């Protein structure tokens, strides 16, 4: 019997500014939805991975694995529950850990729950906390924020490749169009190119419509071995490949301001392991925390030459286009609850590949590629899902 790994269930909360919901409350809701969706019972879970980035400084809560297990009602089962942290790539990293645990033969059923509760703190205080995913001593100390560093990349990219701001804005327009079809998304409004170009500046040349919002939310998956799935007559979506890579922490230490080496290497590895090519992909979920990253990532995943992703933004990236990008609504419009974001990409992939994505269903979806990234590119996790 092969040791293939499948996602057999997925669930998530609504993403948004959820003042009335707590960290544990969100995690439990997503987890229970995923378990119910998988058609298993909580007694069947053998290991739990919690994914979270900033609960320690935002909510004053660490020990997230225990918290989620306890309030999901499985404390008395005494199963392992740990937290995986890789900043905003925590979600993808946690899925990968579960994938490895199942592939190793040690476990047959794992639950991955990603959660972030970001609105329990004032707006610009959360910005300082988000800056903790940068190099605190040598970037944030001098006034760098994630948006500022993305803007520094954007300015250099636009100059070197003669790309206009429109190309970046179109990524956000596409995200909002897709999110308007997603009941769980943070934003449901469509935006026009003009609105995207003329929003309040955040870090020039980036404005409010180039930046993912501060989002509360949780997403969860149930993952299982192929043998367990078949023995129990369950169904699921196969994880065809999983890869992760790392780069220097600080942007100023990297080889390039607009090549994400960690994404490039992880993508290459994922394509190699799955035996698939970029043209085999039916859709892409990108970590576009800032619009410029969407363009850079399309290039580094192998969908365009460096500096040429702007040729895809007019039509290709739409849901009915040649290469649908972020059918979920992406980080800009579905939202970016850090620890949940990478798991949320899998929730979308699960829906798309089970043909249950409703109004945003990509036609004949067969394979999807999911790219989840930490900060300005220090870690990238790339998964390819789909196939038999």
């Amino acid at each position: 019997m092969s040791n293939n790994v499948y996602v057999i269930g997925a669930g998530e909360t609504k993403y948004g500014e959820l003042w009335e919901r707590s960290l544990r409350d969100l995690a439990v809701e997503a987890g229970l939805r995923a378990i119910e969706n998988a058609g298993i019972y909580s007694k069947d879970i053998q290991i739990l991975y919690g994914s979270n980035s900033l609960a320690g400084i935002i909510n004053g809560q660490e020990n997230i694995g225990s918290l989620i297990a306890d309030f999901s009602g499985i404390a008395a089962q005494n199963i392992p529950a740990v937290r995986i942290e890789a900043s905003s790539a925590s979600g993808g990293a946690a899925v990968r850990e579960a994938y490895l645990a199942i592939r190793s033969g040690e476990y047959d059923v794992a639950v991955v729950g990603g959660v972030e509760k970001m609105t329990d703190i004032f707006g610009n205080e959360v910005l300082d906390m988000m800056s903790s995913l940068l190099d605190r001593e040598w970037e944030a100390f001098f006034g760098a924020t994630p948006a500022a560093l993305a803007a520094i990349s954007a300015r250099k990219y636009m100059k070197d490749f003669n790309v206009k701001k429109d190309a970046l804005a179109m990524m956000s327009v596409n995200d909002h169009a897709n999110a308007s079809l997603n009941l769980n998304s943070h934003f449901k409004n469509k935006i026009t190119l003009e609105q995207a170009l003329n929003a309040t500046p955040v870090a020039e040349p980036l404005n409010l419509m180039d930046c993912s919002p501060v989002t509360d939310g949780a997403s969860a998956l149930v993952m299982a071995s192929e043998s367990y799935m078949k023995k129990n007559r369950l169904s699921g979506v196969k994880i065809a490949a999983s890869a992760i890579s790392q780069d220097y922490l600080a942007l100023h230490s990297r080889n390039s301001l607009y090549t994400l080496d960690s994404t490039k290497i992880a993508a290459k590895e994922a394509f190699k392991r799955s035996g698939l090519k970029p043209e085999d992909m039916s859709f892409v979920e990108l970590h576009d925390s800032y619009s410029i990253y969407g363009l850079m990532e399309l290039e580094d995943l192998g969908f365009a030459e460096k500096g040429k992703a702007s040729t895809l933004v007019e039509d290709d990236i739409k849901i009915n286009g040649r290469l649908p990008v972020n059918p979920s609504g992406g980080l800009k419009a579905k939202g970016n609850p850090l620890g949940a974001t990478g798991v949320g990409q899998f929730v979308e992939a699960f829906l798309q590949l089970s043909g249950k994505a409703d109004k945003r269903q990509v036609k004949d979806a067969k394979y999807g590629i999911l790219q989840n990234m930490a900060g300005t590119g220090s870690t990238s996790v790339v998964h390819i899902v789909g196939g038999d």
Partner: protein
Amino acid sequence: MGELSRIWRESEHRYRLMGNKCGHCDMVFFPIRDVCPHCHRESIGKMKPVELSGKGEIVSFTIVHDTPPSFVRQRPYTLALIRLDEGPVLTGQIVDAEKDAVEIGKRVKSVFRKIGEDGKSGIIQYGYKFVLE
């Protein structure tokens, strides 16, 4: 954000741009590294302190409007990546320049300035910023 010892520990590097150099391949680093990422084991015990000139050029920059609480009074400020003549690239603010005067490729030099403070009665943090040359 910042405790006394942390600020004190880094003061030499932030006040005088102290970097270091790998004795095996001569690559210069800022901030200092205990291990050279190119020579690994060969560099251990061979990393030597080196004071940097503070002169360099702008690789890219942004004007920051949305800031953490400790930078609110400085907004909007110009933040840049600067390639020092000795090789390392670092992150810092460009000050005392008209907005339109800052461009990619322009020469800058470091100046000693206040970076921030821990509240009204807390420690004042100093370090480098840059001005156009």
